[in-house]
């Protein structure tokens, strides 16, 4: 198991060997984000801006106008919140060739707590025109996405996790922009997830299988642009859809899925799991995942109770779709 930040740091350093246009812009966190590997290899292409995230974006933009292809790296929350206005005007509105690596995304940041957690990045970056938004599942996909983004023309935001998760993708995995990736094919209860949470959702599916509930697992590494056809295809035959994300339940993966399905009135019910519109706290990873409902165990529990509610509703209405609702 290798943490995504390690993979990102190694991969960017590796790409730097062959692509001299790659430069790295740091916000005084290179030893946390693992940008320090690039710094050691390519001191002349490593730009330490210090604790000034807005300025980082401006400098990266400026470099991009000369043909450089900058990666920016700092904690996700300081990109998506502290530097949002420069990202909007200088990167998104101009379509600049800037890659944003949001490190320490989600809940798990080494006990730093809510001031350092980014549980809104997907909602914020997804709303921005011209922005590609990626959230890899594990070490394999983190490497693939880092390579893909390095080659891509235009703004990209990549959600990078601090701590390692169980690998769920094969070593020869190929990342395809927008495509849904089915990690467990079984079942008409479909769990849709993104980022490293997908790894925990696969574990949850295993727990559910042990309890006799078959659940499909669909992983969406691309939050934007979504390939609707691919998503719909992966959801075929679903009777209940449960989105799970290490992110607020508002406006992120769950929101994106609901927006797509809104077009299809007979689509399955969607239950959204994630941070329940609340701030969290400091604490060890296991504690946080457990308390905020994102551990494999807790996801499995919540799926079980959603299934029970769903089946009761179907039984009482005698129909495949629920009676209650807005009709």
């Amino acid at each position: 198991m290798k943490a995504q930040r390690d993979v990102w740091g190694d991969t960017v350093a590796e790409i730097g060997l062959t692509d001299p246009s790659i430069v790295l812009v740091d916000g005084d966190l290179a030893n946390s984000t693992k940008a320090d590997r690039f710094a050691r290899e390519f001191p002349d292409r490593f730009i330490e801006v210090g604790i000034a995230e807005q300025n980082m974006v401006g400098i990266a933009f400026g470099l991009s106008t000369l043909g450089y292809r900058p990666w920016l790296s700092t904690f996700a929350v300081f990109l998506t919140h502290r530097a949002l206005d420069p990202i909007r005007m200088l990167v998104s509105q101009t379509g600049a060739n800037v890659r944003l690596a949001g490190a320490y995304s989600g809940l798990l940041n080494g006990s730093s707590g809510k001031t350092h957690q980014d549980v809104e990045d997907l909602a914020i970056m997804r709303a921005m025109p011209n922005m590609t938004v990626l959230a890899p599942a594990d070490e394999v996909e983190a490497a693939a996405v880092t390579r893909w983004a390095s080659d891509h023309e235009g703004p990209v935001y990549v959600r990078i996790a601090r701590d390692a998760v169980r690998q769920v993708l094969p070593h020869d995995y190929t990342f395809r922009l927008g495509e849904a990736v089915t990690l467990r094919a079984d079942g008409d209860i479909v769990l849709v997830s993104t980022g490293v949470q997908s790894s925990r959702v696969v574990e949850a599916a295993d727990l559910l299988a042990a309890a006799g509930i078959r659940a499909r697992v669909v992983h969406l590494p691309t939050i934007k642009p979504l390939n609707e056809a691919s998503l719909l295809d992966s959801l075929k035959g679903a009777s209940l859809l449960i989105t799970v994300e290490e992110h607020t339940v508002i406006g992120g993966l769950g929101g994106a899925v609901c927006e797509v399905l809104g077009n299809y009135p007979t689509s399955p019910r969607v239950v959204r799991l994630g941070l329940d519109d609340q701030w969290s706290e400091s604490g060890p990873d296991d504690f946080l995942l457990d308390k905020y409902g994102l551990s494999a165990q807790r996801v499995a529990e919540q799926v079980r109770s959603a299934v029970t509610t769903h089946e009761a509703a179907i039984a009482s209405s005698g129909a495949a779709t629920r009676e209650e609702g807005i009709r």
Partner: protein
Amino acid sequence: MDIDVSLSDPPSDARASGAAGVDLHRIARHVRWHILNTVAQSKAGHIGGPLSMADLVVALYFRELNIDPHRPDAPGRDRFVLSKGHSAIGLYSVLALRGYFPVAELATFDHGDSRLQGHPDMRLTPGIDVSTGSLGQGLSAAVGIALGARMAGQAFRTWVMLGDGELQEGMVWEAVNSASRFELSSLTAIVDVNGLQQFGWPAVDGRDRFDRSEPWAHVDLAAIFRGYGWNVIEIDGHDFAAIFAAFDEAGENARATTRPTVILAGTIKGQGISFTRGTYTWHNGVASEEQLATARAELMIEGETDESAA
């Protein structure tokens, strides 16, 4: 469209009329007219800031910058970032007179489907190097450009125009710090110190009498820039001789020092037209027919054509 100027005003100093026979005073008058008139026709836009920086931008584009209006994307060109993007119409007027696009196109300013957006858009307008509009971001972009130029072994210089109110934006100081840390002597910032911003602070006792106090009254800007390790030059931003002396000094600094240079240019907001001069109330505004007539007279536009201005 090449520069083709008939000299009608006597130049007040040698540099204001140079090799190409361009009379900068005259161009600046026409620029000022286009600012007021274009905004009046479009019924929206800024006036005071474009007018205060006009002489500086004319001096840059007609004498100082290494640019070619026919090759706005030439890799080796000097870069200019209008960080105070709300003054776009001032820059557009200069670019048009300099030949980047037809003067007639100014009439599309702020219209729909126009290349001349309310704030500069580098993807639309020939000659615009950086998109701006949200204040405080241009210097960071310029730091990235100047740094990239050095990394790429390019010799061009990078210029930025900032507003004095804009300096309140913290991101500017992040960039000021980086510029000297990275020893970017090829970077020259000009601050249009016109002593006013959009609303600002009342002059005396909190009552609004349409007078306003200097936004930086309690602050010694030169000392701050020096503290950050910059070269500082203070001039009258409406005096071409002083402007060119400052440009020369900045050029010398670029060659001979490791420090970026800031030119603190004392200007008057709304300069050049009697009713817009020295008041924050013309930060933006739409001139009436009568006011346009007054301005035309004051700017001595009557009988001159744009073609003859540049």
